[in-house]
């Protein structure tokens, strides 16, 4: 969706163009959550996401399971060796334990996914609210800016901007990814605010003399944010893929940073000899992306089926 590198998945923009697609959100009903919690479609991906987040937060707790937790303890004599006891995934070309590397890779990959999504969300809520609520020139400017980034060949843009950064850290990569993914959510936020703005209680608040900021913060945003909020999980999945793609072509993170993308990138040239080097990071990456996407799908279906 917002996976910037997934050019062919602009589901949200396409649907957002349907008139009235993003109506005012309904308040989260307790019942919905309860119903969700009982579905395996919901709690299985949720469990994986929680597990991966825990892995990203304290990788050492997971990396040491097989007795060899340090991803930096490497010895070239083990370069490319297959699984042995204590090293269930074998070793990478540097002779580092692949399992602990893949576990530690969760931090950068998820970090970028979550940070980018958070950035995107903030921008979307702020700009989307401004454009939707104030309309006029504000809307005009923001909407044209969205158009600029919307039609932009995203991958080209990201490559160019990333090349201008000399440091490729979690922060810089996230900033670039966010720079090119904010319009999708902003557009949805905007139409949601547009719909909310006209509701009676907002008019009432305005007539009671509440200031625009107060109305926005108290009345409009809390009621308009749901369509955007339910998309965040899917966005995280997309961003993780996007980071891996950028790193895969060599413009994202680079070693000695440990991320799944970096591992995939270095596995490229060893794939035919050591398929495991590609397989295990790809497996974790896919699991993470899949869980976030499925979780997001489920949330979306439950809270805002019209956004499908």
């Amino acid at each position: 969706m917002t996976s910037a590198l997934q050019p062919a998945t602009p589901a949200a923009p396409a649907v957002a163009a349907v008139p009235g697609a993003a109506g005012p959100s309904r308040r989260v009903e307790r019942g919905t959550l309860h119903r969700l919690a009982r579905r395996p479609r919901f709690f299985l991906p949720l469990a994986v996401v929680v597990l991966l987040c825990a892995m990203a937060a304290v990788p050492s707790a997971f990396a040491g399971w097989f007795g060899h937790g340090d991803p930096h303890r490497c010895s070239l004599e083990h370069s490319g060796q297959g699984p042995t006891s204590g090293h269930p995934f074998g070793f990478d070309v540097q002779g580092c334990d692949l399992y602990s590397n893949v576990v530690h890779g969760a931090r950068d990959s998820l970090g970028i996914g979550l940070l980018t999504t958070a950035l995107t969300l903030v921008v979307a809520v702020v700009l989307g609210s401004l454009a939707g609520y104030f309309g006029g020139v504000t809307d005009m400017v923001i909407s044209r800016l969205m158009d600029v980034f919307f039609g932009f060949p995203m991958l080209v843009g990201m490559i160019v901007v990333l090349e201008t950064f000399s440091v490729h850290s979690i922060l810089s990569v996230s900033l670039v990814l966010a720079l090119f993914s904010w319009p999708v959510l902003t557009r949805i936020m905007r139409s949601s605010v547009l719909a909310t703005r006209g509701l009676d209680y907002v008019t009432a608040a305005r007539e009671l003399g509440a200031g625009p900021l107060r109305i926005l913060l108290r009345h409009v945003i809390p009621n308009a944010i749901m369509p955007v909020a339910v998309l965040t999980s899917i966005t995280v999945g997309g961003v993780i893929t996007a980071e891996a793609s950028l790193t895969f072509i060599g413009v994202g993170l680079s070693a000695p940073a440990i991320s799944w993308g970096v591992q995939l990138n270095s596995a490229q040239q060893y794939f035919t000899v050591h398929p495991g080097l590609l397989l295990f990071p790809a497996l974790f990456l896919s699991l993470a992306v899949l869980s976030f996407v499925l979780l997001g799908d489920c949330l979306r279906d439950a809270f805002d089926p019209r956004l499908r």
Partner: protein
Amino acid sequence: MALGAAGALAAVSACGGGGAQSGGTSAAGGSYSIGVPSWYIAHLTPGKAGFSGVADAIWTPLTQVDRGGKVVDAVAQSLRSTDQKHWTITLKSGWKFQNGEPVTAQSFADSWNAAAYAPNAMTNGYLFANIDGYAALNPTSGKPTTDKLSGVQVVGASTLKVTLVKPLSMFPYVLAGTAFAPMPKAAFKDLAAYDRLPIGNGPYQVASPGLAPGGQQITLKRFDGYPGAKGKAAQITVKTYQTDATAFTSFRSGAVDIATASGNDLSTASRMYSSQLVTSPTAAVVYLGFPLWDRRFADVRVREAFSLAVDRKAIVASLLQGHAQTAAGIAPNVIAGGGGTDCADCSYDPARARQLLAAAGGWKGSLTLWTKQDPDMQTVLEAIVNQLRSNLGISSLSMKVQPTDQIYPNLLAHKTTGPFLLYMGASYPNLYSQADQLFGSTSGTNVGGYKSGAFDSLMNRAAAATTSGAGLKLAQQATRTAMADLPLAPLYYPVSGAVHAKKLSGLQLGYLGDVDLSSVTVR
């Protein structure tokens, strides 16, 4: 018999739209395709083209370096000098350009002047800095007042007199570079058009329309008027790829007949295509350079500690799968004068490394290591980072990768904040070239900033030596002098390899590790 007829047919049809001068004569030999990096054919003017097997096929300069690393005359009949400063060059007769124009002394003078003339912005222009008058064509400010090198004089149709800025006994090696190839009169009518469809004097000519805008390949046709050893194949398709790895993948999928194999692909190739793989040591060294302007590396013991902490054998054996030689000097033995042990601290001794570092005051803070954007270099640097971490106990290590166009300017501007892993290939296969490029105080590739009066004077004496043997001895002495200061730690000499389809044979690699296109025979 049938095969030969088919080959002839193919060649005839291929020549249908091309030049007329090659028609009629034997067109047998078949065709093949080769995958190369895109910069190989990005420019096809001697002054702009990279030194590559493709350039070697299109042009033949005055001299050539044979596969043994020895310089031999090509278009030149003789090169004579008594003081190594003034050179008299006579040309063989009977050489023609691919458009029929004879190759004369003037053809060389025109080409060299064009390359050295700054406003032409030819990227090989710096190679002419040895020749008298280069400064006038490349003023530090303003426009040059002349467009002719004063040190190049055409004495007759086949005699050229060249005056150098200072004596250089290795000048015949220098002349082997394709930058010194001749250009016909026709080229100067439209240099931009020539750059895409050049007329050379080599064994192969670029078939019309040359390199199309945005094009990814060119076709080479055998030039039957070539007086030297003629090409074996009648036609060669040169296809470009973004990286060696994509070229190798294409070879494996059957899209291209020859591809260079480097890095891990080399071990894949040696396992899967052992009978189709040709390898050759490259006239180059991979080294870990030290930023001598950085005070942390001012103490030679620190540099020694870093050198001793790197396990070169493990890197060569495990990472490079044996496709390299560990280096204790700056030039392998394929280079004249190379192969010596110039470096005392290029072995692996972590204990002594730690001692030396402790004696120099230990290491504080973090360190960033640099390299250029190249998967193999990155992999090797990663291993070095790991080894430094465990052998020297430096915990905060990071790694930065920059494209070539960034890393060199940054190094020269002293913006690079740590040791750097780089590759240095010899401009010509002589230790003098390698030593000059790495340590010469005026060299643009001496990125570590090494300066030594003793080295420079020894090198000057080497350049002025009357025999090449004496010159080499002095160059070796100079190299040892520089290496005693350890401005960089040599790591290994890379090996280059190329794989070829089963239908091809006779493939040979030149001293740069490039495929000699003429040598390939289509079965």
